[in-house]
């Protein structure tokens, strides 16, 4: 990949607000950069990414309407709609 590609950015919507991330960033990164929790736990705690590699499911969010998607395993695409899981 040529190095200039790393500086290219995409914009995704996280809970309705636009977030600009570097090309190649995962959805989990976009949610952290937005300062949002990925999900709310069964007892009501905010949770963010933990393992970063698709094991723990703490970063699960709805991506373009598909619920329970692991944010760390999906790359951001321009215009993607991401919402935290309640």
């Amino acid at each position, binding site marked *: *990949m*040529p*190095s200039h590609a790393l500086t290219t950015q995409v914009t995704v919507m996280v809970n309705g607000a636009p977030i600009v*991330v*570097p090309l*190649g*960033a*995962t959805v*989990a*990164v976009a949610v*952290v*950069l937005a*300062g949002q*929790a990925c999900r709310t*736990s*069964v*007892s009501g*705690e*905010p*949770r*963010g*990414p*933990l*393992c*970063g*590699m*698709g*094991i*723990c*499911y*703490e970063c*699960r969010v709805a991506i373009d309407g*598909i619920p*329970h*998607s692991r944010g*760390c*395993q*999906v*790359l951001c695409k321009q215009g993607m709609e991401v919402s935290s899981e309640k």
Partner: protein
Amino acid sequence: MTREAPPHFEVLVIGGGPAGMAAAARAAECGARVGIVDDNFRLGGQIWRGQSCDGQRDETTDTEASTWAERMHRSGVTSLCGLRVVHQPNPGALLAENLDGFRELGYQKLVLATGARERLLPFPGWTLPNVMGAGGLQAMVKCGLPIRGKRVIVAGTGPLLLAVAAYFRQHGAEIPVMCEQAPWASLAWLGLCLSGWPAKLLQGLQLKRNLAGVPFAANSWPLAAHGSRTLDRLTISRAGRTETIACDYLACGFHLVPNLELALLLGCAVGDGCVRVDDFQQTTVSPVFCAGEPTGVGGVELALIEGQIAGLAAVERTTEARALFGARQRARRFARLLDRTFRLRSELRHLSSPDTIVCRCEDVSYSRLQQHATWRSAKLHTRCGMGPCQGRVCGPATQLLFEWKPDSVRPPVFPARIETLAAISGHSRPEHSEVPGEHR
């Protein structure tokens, strides 16, 4: 380039880290039709994450990673990324799922190279956002999370901590302290033993140079993470004293545990937390081989050797496989040295307070688990380990905390969609023949 893969492989490799890539390349170079499947969107596994493993080179690429990627590419291995194996509906076939659907993959020989995950241990506040695994935060940074100017505390145990801390520093983070739970005496002994491993010694010295000025504390571990909606301070036990330090992230992992779920599902025998294999990396289930961390955590060097042996043995090139036995033995000795050095201290079993959540999926607290004698009892009564991660996080933690033994594994080994479950029960056939992200 996207194209439809052959539905059946002579050798199918599960896991695209170093062990899997080496197995796939060696088998394909012998003329076999080989496929490699990985849950991630790119090959390379965790250790080579962020490096170009599609056969192209760039200035950031580890030469070893690109060498194996090129060998795979040249020998015509079919890569299936973003695809997660959830079940074996019948011997010789695996069912796998991605964001768009599911598909069946046929095989004659199977190589499991499913890698390892971090051991994550509970302590008060560990569920706060921005408390992550050590490799977990590194993976996030490799995937675009900027940490320039952020204060990152690195804690836990194992050689990964040094590499992770050096990586964060290189990317502009400030590291207020590194906490290694192992005592100085163990680390000093490791240092002495490294004279027998010049390449490792050199690596260690290079990391030490990159970490010049970063406070390194042995005999130290996290006690509690603080913050309202997100982490802002960490209390640590630092060589016997308690100290609270402001930070933006905690990167905390207690070495690695093998990913055994798929091996268990296929009926492979497991002992001492590792998949049992013979000299040729063959498991107790005859067409199934296993290489890398699942046979015992040993790092990238051992994984590459085991992967090659498994790949060669799967295509019956026993003489070439045998030539690697000596190198494997040496790499295994080093792995045992690391195990001894970074053995977990008993204090880590007592970090939780009664209300500390141990099972993060189902929010089961330490005090609720204390009422149970076995993992099975805890599962049945509290739903501990029954959430989406299926005990991948709290299982290893409760093994340390309560000495509970893990249960058998049942399909699906990962949460799966209803169409996939329908296929498992035999009511439906896979419809998706083309998988996005697939390329040769």
